[in-house]
């Protein structure tokens, strides 16, 4: 993973000095453990601040809509698919972008690691590739990286960028895996059981909208929760309003969500919001055989109409 840092810095320096791009979107090292900060490098000297490791879970495509000028962007598999969605939905032009594709080994889930430690604070973490070496005030441990990936990374089937101008590493092997085991388990619950399950899931929500704002596919100038003439959704933490927000956002993402996991990463109270979006992802896959952003010339099914769209309700 160290090598990605070097490669990104070299590419950024080159692109900025040649003025091929006006800015490079990447990450710089964070001030707290397990975090990096999205960073816009505009000068060649600033390229040296760029880093890439297992703490780059936020989807940088989030920053693209409505950007002007030429921009280079570091993009792992899921990010690149989000870029395709942006291109299909005219949020940015292909000519503006120089995509630095990053075959991804998965991102670390800091909450999973913290949970394992029963209260001790991790002060430093070194991502060595197969392992993560963590240390605190009075402990040191080496963890198997694969056991502490973000949940979306553990079941990822598109680790390699689907679109890029330059690939910064060797493609990684994609896995065959059942992505919807947890969704099917919820689907098989009885209605009352399901209702209690979701009520419990959504209970901590404080309607901060970190999930929505971290999501590259949520770029509406006025989100439906902010409409006021008329007002569609209440702004209290009443469960009905909170459900409305989460369910409706998931529907708006149907066929557009690339399961980058930024929403879950961003949530300050640790809600597993991907349980909503993955359900819709499964529905779209089954109905339309479509995966968001994989093919550059196929629009998300709910953005468009095709005569062969399934219509089971017509009998």
């Amino acid at each position, binding site marked *: 993973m160290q090598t990605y840092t070097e490669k990104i810095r070299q590419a950024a320096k080159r692109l900025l000095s040649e003025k091929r791009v006006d800015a490079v979107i990447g990450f710089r090292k964070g*001030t707290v*453990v397990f975090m990096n*900060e999205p*960073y816009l490098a505009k000068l060649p000297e600033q390229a040296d601040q760029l880093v890439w490791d297992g703490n780059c879970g936020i989807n940088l495509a989030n920053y693209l809509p409505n950007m002007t000028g030429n921009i280079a962007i570091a993009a792992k598999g899921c990010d690149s698919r989000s870029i395709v969605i942006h291109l299909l939905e005219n949020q940015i032009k292909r000519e503006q972008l120089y995509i630095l594709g990053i075959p991804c080994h998965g991102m670390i889930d800091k909450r999973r690691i913290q949970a394992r430690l029963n209260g001790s604070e991790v002060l430093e973490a070194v991502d060595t590739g197969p392992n993560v070496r963590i240390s605190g005030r009075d402990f040191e441990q080496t963890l198997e990286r694969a056991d502490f990936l973000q949940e979306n990374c553990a079941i990822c089937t598109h680790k390699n960028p689907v679109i890029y101008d330059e690939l910064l590493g060797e493609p990684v092997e994609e896995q065959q895996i059942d992505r919807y085991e947890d969704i099917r388990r919820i689907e098989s619950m009885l209605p009352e059981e399901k209702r209690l399950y979701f009520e419990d899931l959504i209970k901590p929500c*404080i309607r901060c909208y*970190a999930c929505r704002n971290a999501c590259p596919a949520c770029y509406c100038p006025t989100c439906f929760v902010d409409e006021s003439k008329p*007002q569609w959704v209440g702004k*209290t933490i009443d469960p009905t309003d909170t459900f409305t927000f989460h369910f409706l956002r998931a529907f708006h993402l149907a066929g557009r969500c690339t399961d980058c996991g930024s929403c879950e990463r*961003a949530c*300050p109270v640790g809600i597993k919001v991907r349980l909503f979006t993955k359900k819709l992802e499964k529905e779209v896959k089954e109905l339309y055989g479509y995966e968001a952003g994989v093919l550059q010339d196929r629009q998300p099914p709910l953005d468009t109409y095709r005569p062969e769209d399934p219509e089971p309700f017509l009998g």
Partner: protein
Amino acid sequence: MSDIYIAKSNFRGVIERLMGRYRVCAPVKNGSSHDFAPIEDPSEADLGFRNSRLSPKGIFHPQAECMFDYNLAGEDPQAGILTEARKDFSPQVVLGIRPCDAKAFRLDDANFDTDSLKDPWWVRRREATTLIGLACDDPCSTCFCISMGGGPYDTAGLDVLLLDTGEGYAAQVLTERGKNTLEATSGWSSVPSAISALTLEKKAAAEQRIGQAFDPAILVQKDMIELFKSPIWEEVQFACINCGACTFLCPTCWCFDIQDEVCADKGERLRLWDSCMFPLFTLHGSGHNPRSQKVQRVRQRFMHKLKYYQDKYNSGPACVGCGRCVQACPVNIDIRQVGRLMASPGCSCPA
């Protein structure tokens, strides 16, 4: 009342007796974190916590609060009259609150409890509440209370401060209210003599661990317009996604919105937490928005916390260094780093 002591083995009894007279809010374990909540049994209180995920400001300033209700039903004699919503101001105790959060309430008082304007619910809740604090011996790496004028053993805003001595708690009684509350319980004894040396040691150790983040006093000297126009904001703002995580978790953020929820001929007027990070925050009825750009909103937040509040009230920044925003920000915007940049814009090194 001089300092007193309770063995941990007797502490359950203290909580029980408190619960006999007060509603007791304490840190309750919630998955892998804690939140302050009213407890039904002493065993729910977990004073082994670091700090709560959400600040306890919801105890005085709930996220969604009904202010008034009304109905327009023709025959009802109360029709068309705004009736104040029923509130519960019964005496309560917040047990285990950290010095940073207690100090934050003092900072919030500058907004809710002034000579000219008093928020009736905030004021009455504050009057009905005893804050029994717990000194910090295990601060997080994100804590920076000392730089903000506080400290792990700071007593500002507290009625009682508990010091964990291992086997028990030594209680510093700080106010008349604190004295009355503790007198309502029993089981306390006098402080064993070895304790004071031990607590001084632990206090020094905690303070050393927290260290210094930046000096907010430097910002008082700086010209406001110069800070406002500083080129640092263009860089600071990039990562921000304008969610409300920092503002909702912050104990010194108080901004609210007021709106009505109406159904047919019945309605409620609500006060709701709002966030300067949200684009709607400054949207005028005319459609004009003076802070329509992200950079303006990001700048506003830090200027308010670290500059405007200092200039206006002359009592330090509107930040207690609890570090919740640092932990919660999805993109690692770090107020300590922003403070450093504001104090000396030439420095662009991270952390």
